[in-house]
């Protein structure tokens, strides 16, 4: 069964870096990209998205607001917030919407825990 992961970041470079890490760790997953929250919401309305990786600091709606929006319609979707902003409030807001906190600059190591957890949750949900 195919897994589709959505990468949302206003920075094209950051999307490339995230895509590269995800591609190395989960080569069989399909990757789709959005450059802001609006595009992301459009994407999820058009196609099946199983996992979402969101940048925090974006113009317009930020990643945590987007996560909260996604959470309303997708209570079980694995969501990661990627940021170098490690303020307590940011971390606790991520927790409140049940999103995983992943540190920027993004590395394969930093991403692997989230992707493993996500894969496991998807497997259980589909069983």
């Amino acid at each position: 069964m195919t897994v589709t992961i959505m990468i949302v970041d206003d920075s094209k470079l950051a999307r490339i870096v995230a895509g590269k890490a995800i591609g190395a760790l989960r080569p069989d997953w399909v990757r789709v990209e959005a450059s802001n929250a609006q595009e992301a919401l459009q994407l999820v309305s058009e196609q099946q998205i199983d996992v979402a990786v969101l940048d925090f600091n974006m113009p317009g709606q930020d990643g945590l607001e987007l996560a909260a929006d996604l959470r309303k319609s997708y209570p079980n979707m694995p969501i990661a917030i990627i940021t170098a902003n490690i303020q307590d409030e940011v971390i606790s807001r991520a927790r409140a919407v049940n999103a995983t906190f992943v540190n920027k600059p993004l590395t394969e190591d930093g991403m692997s825990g989230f992707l493993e957890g996500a894969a496991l949750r998807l497997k259980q949900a589909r069983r």
Partner: protein
Amino acid sequence: MTGATISLDELERDALTEVVNIGVSRAASSLRKMVKRQVLLSVPSVEIVTQAAAASLIGQRESENLVAVKQEFEGAFSGRALLIFPETKSLELARAVMGDEATDDQVLEIESEALAETGNVILNNCLGTMANMLKQSLKMSLPEIIRGNGEHLFARTSDANKSALVLFLYINFSVQDRNIRGYIAMLMDLPSMAALKILIAGFIDRVTEDVG
């Protein structure tokens, strides 16, 4: 340099914005520890403008005098980094850093010192993170407090060429539940821009390596 204009292509600008964003996010996390309130950040702006235009970009938004902590940095690329506040907000920042138990006199007395120290932590954090990502080391000068309008803050003692182009990076920030807001700004001249462009290209190569 032959005086040719340096420009950044879309991916270079994007990469530079991302590096600044990560640097500033780290700096905000440090400031959060000092003021014990959440620090809110804008998305960074990256512009190539004249020094005069950079000064007015900030100056025009503020009606009151500004206070800035300035540090010069030097290395593969050189320039100036500033933490800027409207004058009344700088007192609020000193108060937030010192804690609510400090008296008004105490706050006034050590305002400059508190600002210099706060600026030092924030600017070092920001530039240090950027330098690490670009695999360079930067030497930072001691923090210096300057007061005045935007033009005064951005003026350079060595050359007063206001029409010279500079790379101007800035972010607005504010502190939640406190009447504090300001800017983090960086200015670099043409030779530094050229050096930075090369480092950014190297950074893009490193992080996109093996991508088909």
